[in-house]
């Protein structure tokens, strides 16, 4: 049970001189602003929307993994009473995709299907039942092509191509980057080790199935309500595919019932709903079935990895070489970014002076993979932390101590030119080791029990947008009403992490009102300035900073008006508790609403804007766009396991996790992110897998896709470490993704501690444990995992000279955002 001593957090004054000395909102474990709506069933999710005359649509899935479409015959479906419209690929031929470099999707398959479940046609009807019956009346004639179902097959078969673009054959993207003379590094190492790992793909399994409702108003405006994390990108995609001016499209993200990255692409069903609404003149709803969610996918990429590291006896890493091969499924999605991400963040935890990364992504005839919590980094982090554990084991180093020694310096650059600001990694390791009793347990527990440690880093938002441009990543407006109410408008999407509450908190803190006084308007492309979306753990940092700037701009006006009334100057004022008052004499002040009235009389309508654009990225090479962030969060994790050598069953009684959050704007929300990450990390590590059998998804249902219940989920002890990041809103960094990363490797390291076997392939199912124990018993290498990487002609790497890795005070930001 966490005992965070919330009462002590209420007013804190030890967090850096550029922040308010005392906060009255930030740092408190407040109820979320929409919490009561959610617990009373009043929060509106997309499928809860019911509009008058709403029609229902369904999608016809491809039955073929890979085939040319010879003919789609819809006339029987069209003739069915109650059917309002039927569309096929020909009606929506324009290609789209989340990344500008991979505009390879169509809303409905045009000439070819590329995976079982890919939508081929869509029907709108007066009810769902009629729409489903209509689907059965659509005849599709396929000319089958050879299916390609694995990384190996994709690399082998260069004749049968799934897509017509990319690196060649079925390689979608190949990357090769080298920072410094890696071979020299290996040469000067005392020990060089190579390992192979595989991380299976898995689905987000958000509880809510994707859903969208479209309405084309007779006044010529399309509105789409959708369970999306990225309304801005959906807005763009709709404009492109439907050939409508963006000004005529409004996208509203409803509360998504879970996202985890799975609702970050523009989706078939969103575009089809919009098109059908335009054709029928009626609102159209599409809600995917759970089976269709597995086809929509965009989940974790299966990744095959090879890593080679050289170390000196004294502990320093001399060089690292990392290779990854991603199974991308049939379309691009975020895959190019994912590929880079599998190589980008190795360098931001421990000092790696020379680094080489080679990565590729292949197309296969499976649902497209995309971004899932951690986006391309849990896989290499798994590989890296197990690999390093093996090195520590080999070298006889204490894995906690070694990690602390090798941790990156604050305000330093990495070999691949990523700028680290604050880093609480050492403190995280120290605290998690202490809390878990790691030193007392490691290599000391009875057979079958063990502990494992792993660490990780994650970005607090990507410094570069998906579409390269110089515009802010997040914009906010703050309006103050003469009655004392405040409204904050921001394009961000609260996917459950509490970003709407964060907006209320930071605005309330700056203006000295209560969060309840702040109306939060988000995720509506008509009403709110653009925010790029809820991905890459960017929201708190970026929207928080944008909202703070907007609130400060309004506060400026309020303070000027109050200063005159109170006979002082703006800089002598402070705001808290619904009052604006003299800092030197807090009894002298005015109610917030009164100041609002004075200020409105003087300045007119009280509203202001704020924006956040991440700092410029130091890296100047191709590929330098993936990895940079305003700040990195750090996590250390200890997992304790109880392995039954008879059954191979792994029970996890407790996980300890320490997370460098920069600053917890609301500790109970941060804990929730850490706990959810630990849970999801364990799910991926122990049971979750999206796998295929005879070209088909291995039964795409929740019954067969195993995920942890209450009974499989351990006690989780969360420790928050605060480093007060200068780029963060009130010092905050991310929490939503980073804490997932160390969980799978810590688990595997704990299994090794418990029973002495290495499972280098996730998930760690009982059969793999048993197989490894069997090998161990036979005196063979007590390991289960991949044994080779397919041969590939890697392209010549781009060579980049690494910078000096040491702490450099000049990297500290001169101007503080807060």
């Amino acid at each position: 049970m966490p005992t965070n001593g919330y009462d002590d957090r209420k007013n804190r004054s030890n967090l850096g001189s550029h922040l308010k000395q005392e906060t009255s909102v930030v740092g408190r474990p407040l109820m979320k602003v929409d919490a009561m709506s959610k617990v009373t069933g009043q929060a509106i999710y997309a499928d809860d929307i019911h509009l008058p005359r709403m029609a229902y649509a369904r999608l016809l899935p491809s039955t073929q993994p890979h085939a040319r479409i010879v003919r789609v015959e819809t006339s029987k479906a069209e003739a069915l009473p109650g059917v309002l419209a039927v569309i096929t690929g020909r009606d929506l031929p324009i290609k789209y995709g989340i990344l500008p470099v991979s505009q390879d999707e169509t809303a409905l398959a045009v000439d070819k299907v590329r995976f079982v479940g890919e939508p081929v046609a869509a029907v709108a009807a007066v009810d769902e039942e009629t729409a489903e019956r209509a689907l059965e009346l659509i005849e599709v004639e396929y000319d089958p092509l050879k299916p390609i179902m694995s990384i190996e097959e994709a690399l082998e078969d260069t004749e049968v191509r799934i897509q017509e673009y990319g690196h060649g054959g079925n390689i979608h993207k190949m990357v090769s980057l080298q920072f410094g003379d890696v071979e020299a590094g290996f040469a000067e190492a005392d020990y060089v080790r190579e390992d192979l790992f595989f991380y299976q793909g898995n689905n987000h399994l958000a509880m809510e199935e994707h859903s969208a409702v479209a309405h084309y108003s007779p006044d010529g405006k399309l509105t789409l309500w959708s369970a999306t994390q990225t309304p801005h990108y959906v807005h763009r995609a709709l404009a492109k595919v439907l050939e409508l001016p963006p000004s005529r499209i409004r996208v509203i993200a409803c509360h998504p019932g879970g996202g985890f990255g799975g609702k970050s692409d523009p989706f078939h069903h969103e575009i089809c709903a919009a098109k059908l609404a335009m054709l029928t003149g009626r609102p159209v709803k599409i809600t995917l079935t759970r089976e269709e969610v597995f086809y929509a996918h965009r989940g974790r990429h299966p990744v095959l990895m090879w890593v080679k590291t050289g170390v000196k006896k004294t502990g320093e890493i001399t060089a690292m070489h990392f290779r990854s091969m991603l199974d991308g499924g049939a379309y691009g999605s975020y895959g190019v970014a994912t590929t880079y991400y599998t190589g980008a963040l190795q360098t931001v935890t421990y000092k790696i002076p020379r680094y080489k990364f080679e990565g590729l992504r292949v197309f296969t005839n499976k649902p497209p993979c995309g971004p899932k919590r951690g986006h391309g980094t849990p896989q290499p982090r798994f590989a890296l932390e197990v690999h390093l554990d093996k090195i520590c084991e080999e070298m006889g180093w204490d894995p906690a101590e070694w990690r602390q020694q090798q941790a990156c310096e604050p305000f330093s650059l990495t070999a691949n030119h990523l700028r680290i600001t604050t880093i609480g990694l050492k403190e995280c390791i120290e605290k998690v080791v202490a809390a878990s009793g790691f030193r007392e347990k490691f290599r000391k527990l009875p057979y079958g029990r063990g502990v494992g440690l792993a660490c990780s880093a994650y970005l607090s938002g990507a410094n570069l947008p998906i579409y390269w441009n110089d515009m802010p990543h997040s914009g906010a407006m703050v309006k103050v009403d003469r009655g004392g109410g405040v409204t904050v408008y921001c394009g961000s999407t609260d996917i459950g992490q509490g970003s709407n509450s964060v907006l209320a908190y930071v605005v309330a803190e700056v203006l000295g009102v209560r969060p309840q006084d702040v109306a939060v308007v988000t995720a509506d492309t008509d009403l709110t300035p653009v925010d790029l979306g809820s991905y890459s753990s960017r929201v708190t940092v970026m929207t928080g900073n944008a909202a703070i700037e907007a609130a400060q701009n309004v506060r400026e006006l309020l303070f000027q008006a109050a200063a005159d009334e109170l006979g002082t100057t703006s800089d002598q004022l402070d705001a808290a508790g619904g009052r604006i008052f003299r800092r030197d004499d807090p009894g002298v002040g005015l109610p917030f609403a009164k100041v609002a009235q004075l200020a409105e009389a003087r300045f007119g309508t009280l509203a202001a804007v704020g924006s956040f654009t991440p700092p410029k990225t130091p890296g100047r090479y191709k590929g330098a766009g993936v990895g940079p962030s305003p700040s990195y969060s750090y996590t250390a994790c200890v997992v304790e396991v109880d392995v039954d050598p008879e059954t191979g069953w792994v029970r996890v009684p407790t996980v300890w996790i320490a997370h460098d959050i920069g600053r917890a704007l609301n500790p109970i929300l941060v804990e929730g992110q850490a706990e959810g990450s630990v849970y999801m990390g364990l799910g991926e590590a122990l049971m979750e897998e999206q796998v295929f059998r005879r070209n088909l998804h291995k039964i795409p249902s929740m019954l067969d896709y195993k995920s942890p219940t209450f009974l499989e989920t351990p006690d989780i002890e969360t420790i928050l470490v605060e480093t007060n990041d200068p780029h963060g809103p009130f010092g905050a960094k991310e929490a939503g993704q980073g804490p997932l990363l160390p969980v799978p490797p810590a688990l595997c390291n704990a299994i090794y501690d418990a029973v002495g076997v290495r499972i280098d392939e996730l998930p760690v199912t009982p059969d793999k444990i048993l197989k490894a124990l069997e090998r161990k018993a036979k005196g063979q290498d007590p390991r289960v995992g991949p044994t080779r990487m397919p041969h590939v002609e890697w392209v010549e790497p781009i060579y980049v000279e690494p910078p000096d890795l040491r702490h450099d005070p000049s990297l500290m930001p001169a101007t503080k955002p807060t």
Partner: protein
Amino acid sequence: MKQLVALRVNGELHEVYVPVHKTLLEVLREDLGLTGTKHGCELGECGTCTVLVDGEPILSCLTLPVEVQGRDIITVEGLATQGVPHPLQVAFAELNAAQCGYCTPGMLMSAKALLDRNPDPAPDEVREALAGNLCRCTGYVKIVDAVRLAARRQQGDLGAVVEEIERALNEGVVREPGS
């Protein structure tokens, strides 16, 4: 084929004329507008559609309305009384036991059934009782805490609940359930 079904939901009688194969979940959401109850899988595997029938949690996606005619159906909309939320609702809100909130209505119904038969469950009893309800956001930790906090509070004064909400919104005072 349609049939007339009379359902008593949250104490109110509703008579609807619906296709015979329409599930209770669909009728609640589409015909009665009670969209608080969610659907997550169509196959009774996720627990999001849980409602109470005569006090017992059932999966509304596997239930035909005709089976529960004349019985007492409670959905998340019926948990509050006269605008005063149930202690479970307050505790869930306060302890951040609802992140995306999608599993929450079902979770609350299972939790209510538990508390109604076991007013002070141990953590493992909570886990056991709610094991049929999946949550992908919270890691379950705060849900267990919230159920136990509500159990403790349920003994107390219901009217104080509104004050708790106010406090949790503005002060963030969280009582530790474990103590």
